[in-house]
């Protein structure tokens, strides 16, 4: 498998008032192969969206590097970098209500990328917008309408068409289905799957729905409080989690199956994700971890590969 993109020790800190620093993403190293789907899960505040945005250059990197097809991308994007990379890397956003400009028609929204990056004439843009509207399951004459005339699922399709029309190789899907109803979620997931196959896309699929991530992804990455703590084949990570936090996540994930739910021990852990401003020393999960040891509170565990498994885990148990 050829590597398409890799981050090395990618770090993003935000400065807030009184000299305090939010450690949103800390030293995340992850390599994504061509045509692979990597699912990224974690609770809110775990830094998964910030990671996706920093990876694309939408946030300036605090430290670390992003390598795309062997080329190290600049730490801070200049307009020319955006111009160049936007045709290769795109993003689909979580909220289909706030991510489409209400003053632009659907045709303008979808065609804007072509206008900016390829300076194409209006007729050619219109033809391609029409083609893409149909490919995502809408109708060509929808292009003269405004976003408010569409339902959540339809808007998400518009967001997908906007990302796809530039024929990118890599797409960050930031919670693309969490604002949608169950029946519509499946429509959008299947659409993404079809496009992925027909266009040979590589996806970073960010979500908090573990069952959906397992269904969609080849590999699953788990983040907690800015750190990547477990990485491996999606089914393996879900069914045989190694990191205690992954175990807790999987055990907390309710399944639409009453038999499984009745057998499930009540294993919910106490406490909540701490603030990323005052990150505890040592392992970030130590204060909630059911298997905590003394060393966990002092030394931060590194993400290391396990000997007998295709798995990387950041935990002192291994």
């Amino acid at each position, binding site marked *: 498998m050829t590597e398409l993109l890799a981050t090395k020790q990618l770090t993003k800190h935000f400065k807030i008032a009184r000299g305090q620093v939010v450690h949103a993403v800390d030293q995340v190293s992850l390599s994504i192969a061509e045509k692979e789907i990597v699912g990224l899960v974690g*609770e*809110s505040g775990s830094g998964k969206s910030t990671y996706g945005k920093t990876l694309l250059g939408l946030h300036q990197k605090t430290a670390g590097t992003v390598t795309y097809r062997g080329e190290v991308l600049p730490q801070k994007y200049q307009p020319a970098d955006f111009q160049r990379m936007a045709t290769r890397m795109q993003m689909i956003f979580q909220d289909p209500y706030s991510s489409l400009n209400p003053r632009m028609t659907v045709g303008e929204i979808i065609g804007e990328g072509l206008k900016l990056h390829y300076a194409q004439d209006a007729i050619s843009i219109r033809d391609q917008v029409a083609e893409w509207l149909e490919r995502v399951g809408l109708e060509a004459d929808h292009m003269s309408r405004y976003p408010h005339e569409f*339902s959540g*699922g339809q808007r998400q399709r518009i967001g997908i068409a906007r990302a796809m029309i530039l024929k990118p190789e890599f797409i960050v899907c930031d919670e693309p289905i969490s604002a949608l*109803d*169950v*029946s*519509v*979620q*499946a*429509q959008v*997931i*299947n659409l993404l799957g079809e496009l992925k196959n027909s266009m040979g896309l590589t996806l970073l699929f960010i979500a*908090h729905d*573990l*069952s*959906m991530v*397992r*269904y969609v992804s080849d590999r699953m990455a788990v983040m907690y409080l800015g750190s990547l703590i477990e990485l491996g084949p999606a089914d393996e990570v*879900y*069914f045989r989690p190694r990191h205690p936090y992954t175990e*807790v*996540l999987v*055990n*907390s*994930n*309710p*399944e*639409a*199956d*009453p038999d*499984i*739910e009745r057998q*499930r021990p*009540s*294993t*919910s*852990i*106490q406490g*909540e*994700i701490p603030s990323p401003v005052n990150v505890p020393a040592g392992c970030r999960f130590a204060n909630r971890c059911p298997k905590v040891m003394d060393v966990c509170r002092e030394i931060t565990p590194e993400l290391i590969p396990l000997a007998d498994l295709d798995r990387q885990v950041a935990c002192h148990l291994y």
Partner: protein
Amino acid sequence: MSLSPAQQSDNGAQPLLQVSGLEVEFTTYGGIVHAVRGVDFEVNSGQTLAIVGESGCGKSVTVQSMMGLIPMPPGRIVAGSARLRGEEILGRNIINGKDIRGNEIGMIFQDPMTSLNPTMTIGAQIAEPLQVHRGYSYQQAFTHAIELLEMTRIPEATKRARQYPFEFSGGMLQRAMIAMSIACKPAILVADEPTTALDVTIQAQILDLLKDLQAETGMAIILITHDLGVVARLADNVAVMYAGKIVEHGSVDDVFYRSSHPYTLGLRDAMPTNDPERQHRLEPIEGSPPDLFSPPAGCGYAPRCPYAMRICQQFYPEKFPQSDSHYSGCWLHHPQAPQHPERLYFKAENQ
């Protein structure tokens, strides 16, 4: 043929809450929205009824109208009744000298951040229903509020009671909301999407808490949700709503393992499962729910249903009983239906 809710209750005992024929509509600029179009269900003490459905199916309006929380106008309860221990509660605030809201029926909402008053301490807010409904003094009520916070497992309850909502995390706020809603020991707790805004590990904590509180107090819970996983974890009985009507009703096992309505099956097929024996490709339900400005004469699901017949477009199906507690509103269960799709459950005599 159709099951009236009275026939479903065991030994003819009076159910705690019995809702029947509830119809609610809203007058808007675009016309009249028929949000709830005839809903029947009942709830018994110590049991959890989950009302599931997608956005706009009328699940929240159903309980809000029962609680008197629908602004009228534009809302209007067209027909139906809701009886708490036999007493009509629709359109009333007080029965038998007791307030219904907060006292007989408690409610928790989806978003704890916006449901609490940011200018009052948590303790004072929990104390309020006790002062209003029970006539406690502020001191008595505040002391009791601390006990309630302990009951909902908030650490350092004495200190926390003096804090304001902004000092609480989302999960802790939801616990405080639960403490407030159970302050007067209501017979029924209505939980409208109680965990939708929470992370999965916090969701698990809140669901465990609701289960434990129900075991301690014997209250009934009406759970409104769109998440079938939450239903499977908490519910005893399930009502599946679509386009303002209950299309399938039964025990949680009936609805999950003996799904007899194509919509219930469609919902389950649209979700990934982690059970190795039940793996399947996601099958979306194509199309979208009907426009409730002009609700269809027949079954609302017919345009999206893979098994739809001509009658489905024209007449709304009656409730076809599958067992004493399980019914399905689908013409496929009529004895003369021409097909019995394999994946749907049919009771033996219909097969």
